[in-house]
């Protein structure tokens, strides 16, 4: 495959983890890997993007208070319209990534493959892997014709590895060329404006990066009992997570959700407390190295994938677990 583009979402100069994962994957099958980025900090992001294999970075520039979807899609479509067309565009399955892929799909009249968890380029064209039915089946798909292929990939599908050590850039290694790309007229599609940004307070490691994740579900019985999950997570230097059921019920914010519609996590240990194991939850955590499940229903599907299953009431087992860990000092 000749040329691969990676959509490089970044914040204050730091590309998201998924971007580095996608660049690593792209190096495996693309002769040329280039990145598209936007927003303040693009210049410093370019250095990191280069370390992970991007030889050129297209900078769409500051998009102000616009949502990224319309402007970024229009800029990429315009570049393709000028005859600069990659074979594949890899997009991370983030809030903004999905918007951009969707709008670009219409602008180029190209289909999109989403929820990708693996790729295979051995046949020349890309074959994509998708986890379906809660991860119990693997579906393989491909585009039948045309370029560019638009591929939306789930986080943690690939491990991120730099193409060259960080010192080489500092020691005069070639940083990628940064090329400014103009945003064409976007009309009414770009009428939405961000007027305020709210960040929820969180302490401890991030949910999708933590080595230990402790998640709670309906089996906790009441929102107050979620404090047990938070305390256990803190004691294990981990992050608290949640099933969709208790997020929908408003017990905890959406940012805590593990599963199809939430985060994909691959910790060393995942402790599922009072979670039955709906397929949409399992697809987000079955990649954990070890799974401990505590649930009072012996027939709960979560036990079919747990390395250690405790059949019991979480509101009894977890407090004892917390006391025992504290007693160790």
């Amino acid at each position: 495959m000749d040329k691969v583009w990676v959509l490089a979402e970044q914040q204050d100069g730091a590309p998201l983890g998924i971007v580095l994962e996608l660049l690593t994957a792209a190096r495996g099958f693309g002769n040329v890997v280039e990145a598209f980025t936007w927003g303040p900090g693009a210049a410093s992001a370019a250095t990191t993007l280069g370390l992970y294999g991007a030889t050129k970075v297209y900078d769409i520039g500051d998009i102000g208070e616009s949502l990224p979807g319309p402007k970024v899609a229009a800029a990429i479509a315009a570049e393709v319209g000028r005859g600069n067309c990659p074979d594949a565009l890899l997009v991370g399955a983030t809030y903004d990534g999905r918007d951009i892929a969707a709008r670009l799909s219409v602008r180029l009249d190209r289909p999109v493959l989403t929820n990708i968890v693996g790729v295979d380029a051995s046949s020349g064209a890309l074959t994509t892997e998708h986890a379906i039915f809660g991860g119990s089946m693997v579906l393989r798909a491909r585009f039948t014709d045309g370029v560019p292929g638009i591929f939306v990939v789930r986080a943690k599908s690939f491990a991120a590895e730099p193409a060259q050590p960080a010192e080489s850039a500092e020691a005069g290694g070639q940083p990628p060329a940064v090329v400014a790309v103009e945003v064409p007229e976007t009309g009414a599609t770009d009428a939405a404006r961000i007027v305020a940004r709210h960040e929820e307070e969180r302490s401890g490691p991030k949910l999708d990066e933590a080595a230990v994740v402790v998640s709670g579900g309906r089996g906790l019985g009441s929102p107050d009992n979620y404090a047990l999950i938070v305390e256990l997570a803190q004691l294990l230097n981990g992050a608290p997570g949640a099933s969709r059921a208790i997020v929908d019920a408003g017990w905890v914010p959406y940012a805590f959700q593990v599963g199809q519609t939430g985060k994909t996590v691959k910790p060393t240990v995942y402790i599922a407390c009072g979670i039955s194991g709906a397929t949409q939850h399992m697809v987000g955590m079955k990649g954990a190295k070890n799974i401990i499940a505590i649930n009072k229903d012996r027939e709960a599907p979560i036990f079919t994938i747990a390395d250690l299953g405790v059949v019991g009431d979480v509101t009894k087992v977890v407090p004892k677990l917390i006391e025992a860990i504290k007693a160790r000092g």
Partner: protein
Amino acid sequence: MNVAVCLKQIPDTAVPPALDPQDHTLIREGKLIMDDSDSYGVEMGLQLVEAAGGGEVSLVSMAPNGETSGLRTALAMGAAKAVLASDPVLAGSDALGTAKVLAAAIRRLEPDLVLAATESTDGYTGTTPVQLAELLGWPSVSFAKHIEIADGVLRVQRQTEAGYDEVTCPLPAVVTVTAGVVEPRYPSFKGIMAAKSKPVDEVTVADLELDPSEVGPVGARQQVISVEAAEARKSGEIVVDEGDAHERVISFLEQLKVL
């Protein structure tokens, strides 16, 4: 204030899903029900119309065999009418093809606002609503967890990695809602009875003036190559709590060097 809600009718989630052995598409032949994820959009639409003091909620759906069971559920909640695109040539359509069909149906309704779920429960591609917005030439706000309308302008709390953004957006627009944006009502008996006689306008690809090559498997320009069982995780040790199961958890965590 007229709101159109995209509603997907899906196989009953209580029944294990199955794929067609020939083309590996999801089997959608049996009775279909309203995707639960869409109940939030229906409820949000009803509340926004009520707050505006006039207008109605219309439903837009694409389904095989003239299926209306799921639509009737939303009509029973209080939606006024529905447009259903049903045509054998639509089988095997992808997200973009579906968006083209829904956009054509929505142009007939001329709503002020289109609501949709962030993704469906059975296919979860998650791109159709924003593709729809681009086709209509409208702005969109995805992942809304709160919506208000004042002076014809939307004010949306949009979910982000770190928390949420307050976003303003003029109408018309497409908004995708997360579960929890509102608590969906249960249809009343009166609502269920009334739903039976509410209008459902069934349309074909020709009625929508779409080129058949833009939909179905031809329009999708993608194919499933294979479907195989994933490498299964085996279940491990199971202990029944007799008051001391936490000790086994501790020793397991020690073994993993987490403790």
